[in-house]
């Protein structure tokens, strides 16, 4: 049995259903991200786990205990909000101490625990400051300390980084992940930023329109997206249409050229139109090897992005974008030049759903 078990969870607001039949099992100590665009239901699921929203149907169990009927305080979860939500009338120390004070801990115990927490978030000298005297990053660290000071079993993070500057976002996400590993606390992290989800998580749940499109490790989700939505939301992808020639052998035609995948195409027959995906970094210029395919095309555009050069190539009817490292020693193709594209068969992915 998993530590958090979510079964058949559904949420409707009047006639609008925002979460459909959601299932998830989270192991103890795991870091799981809910990734999706705004309105995909990720925050609603988190708020149902926290107890701020009542599920229309389904069950949530934490550590084997059904929590659906319990108020937030009885679920043994901690939460960090997007907009910090520090109590503005209290100092940093008072904020961190809040949950302990409510639980009627002794003054000495509270003092010790607050001290530990301040050290943990590396703000040992700021206990007497008020929230408005802190930067956004500092405030969010205090919010984190406030949530974990009461030692909850589960930590819920609702887009905690999205209000911060890009630089602080990166450093704080590393800090949060390190802290989570140290404490071994089971964590659910809601975000719309694929980079955050990929860099922090043990597993990612990609959500779209209230449904889980794919659940998997960052590696799986990035390299083997199962649907067109996951492919387009996680990273940049070339999406093209192709026609199946031989499903068992993984052979297709793309703009009239023969290509192949490494695996058989499941659930498709010859003549079906499918969506195929190629990562820009998986495509190279030049002739291929035996285990790769080659497509001819014409360079439409060359764009410098610093370390990477992005080249857009037109095939017959579709375009492919490819990324190559910017190496001054290697000459780049010019606009209008005829080139050959090559990619390994493992990198050509056939996606679920209609093309």
């Amino acid at each position, binding site marked *: 049995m998993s530590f958090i078990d979510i079964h058949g969870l559904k949420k409707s607001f009047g006639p609008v259903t925002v979460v459909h039949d959601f299932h998830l099992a989270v192991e103890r100590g795991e870091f799981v991200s809910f990734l999706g665009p705004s309105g995909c239901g990720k925050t609603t699921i988190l708020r149902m786990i926290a107890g701020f929203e009542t599920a229309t149907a389904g069950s949530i169990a934490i550590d084997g205990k059904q929590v659906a009927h319990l108020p937030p*305080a009885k679920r043994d979860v901690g939460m960090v909000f997007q907009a910090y939500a520090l109590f503005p*009338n209290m100092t940093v120390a008072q904020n961190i101490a809040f949950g302990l004070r409510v639980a009627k801990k002794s003054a000495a115990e509270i003092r010790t625990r607050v001290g530990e927490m301040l050290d943990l978030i590396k703000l040992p000298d700021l206990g007497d400051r008020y929230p408005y005297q802190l930067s956004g990053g500092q405030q969010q660290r205090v919010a984190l300390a*406030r949530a974990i000071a009461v030692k909850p079993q589960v930590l819920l993070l609702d887009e905690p980084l999205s209000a911060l500057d890009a630089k602080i976002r990166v450093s704080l996400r590393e800090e949060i992940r390190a802290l989570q590993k140290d404490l071994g606390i089971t964590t659910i992290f809601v975000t719309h930023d694929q980079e955050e989800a990929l860099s922090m998580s043990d597993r990612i749940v990609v959500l779209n329109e209230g449904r889980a499109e794919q659940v998997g490790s960052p590696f799986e989700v990035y390299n083997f997206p199962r649907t067109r939505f996951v492919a387009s939301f996680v990273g940049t992808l070339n999406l093209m249409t192709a026609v199946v020639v031989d499903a068992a052998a993984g052979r297709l035609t793309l703009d009239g050229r023969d290509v192949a995948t490494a695996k058989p195409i499941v659930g498709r027959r010859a003549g079906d139109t499918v969506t195929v995906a190629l990562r820009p970094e998986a495509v190279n210029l030049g002739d291929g090897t035996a285990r790769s395919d080659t497509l001819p095309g014409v360079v439409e555009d060359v764009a410098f992005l610093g370390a990477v050069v992005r080249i857009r190539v037109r095939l017959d009817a579709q375009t492919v974008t490819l990324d190559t490292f910017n190496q001054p020693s290697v000459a780049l193709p010019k606009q209008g030049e005829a080139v050959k594209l090559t990619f390994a068969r493992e990198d050509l992915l056939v996606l679920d759903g209609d093309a």
Partner: protein
Amino acid sequence: MSEPSTATAHRPGGSGLPWAWFGVAPFFLFAVLFLILPTAFLIVGAFQTADGEFTLANIRDLTHPSIVAAYRISIEISAASAIGGAIVGALLAYAAVGGGLPSWIRPTLMTFSGVASNFAGVPLAFAFLATLGRTGLVTWALSNWLGFNLYATGFNLLSFLGLTLTYLYFQIPLMVLILTPALDGLKKEWREASQILGASTFQYWRWIGLPVLWPSLLGATLLLFANAFGAVATAYALTGSSLNIVTILLYAQIRGDVLHNQNLGYALALGMILITGVSNVAYIWLRGRAERWSR
């Protein structure tokens, strides 16, 4: 900073001080002539005899029992209508902002408050006379339908209670208008964060809600107090000169020197400025405190 001024001095408002100040001169001239000097005239006059000699006699004469009584009734009515208006207004504003009512309630309440807070003065007095006066609709309805004679209980619209009840008509909406933005500043997440950390509704209000809100609450109450304290028309139209409040005393003094001492009249005005001034300064200070938190 130290650029040569000759180059830019002729551009309107460039860097030369006189030019820039010229732009606000009409405003300050107006303020001095029609706001500051007239007030200063009275303040200075409060410390002078009729011949222009310095004296504290006028200030001392303010302790005359009838003047003290006028101040006291004014302060009591203003305080009662301010506190009553603040409590009822705060409850109404809270019901509209956080009560889970249909969404049309709030704009309706705000528009109505905008109207009612400006519906003061003589017409308001008429409205209450037509409602709670001896032949008013409510008085009549109470005796006709419930057999309850309002005026037999000693109630009188031209009294402390009556005037307070009338003032509430513009005090409550004013409170709603001032407090609604402050209530909007109470973030939903504060409540949720306290909930998830185990706090009850009472603990939330005790430790977070009220501490965050109290500068706004207290400040607004002070503003309501000053608002009622300076009111003349409602009271005058309602009670004539039968109720001895300080604005009506001053009104009578201006019309006919009932105190038989012009300079005592100035001192009376000075006392009013001090009272409304203190409550307004406190209001501004408290608002500053409230804004510090609501970032």
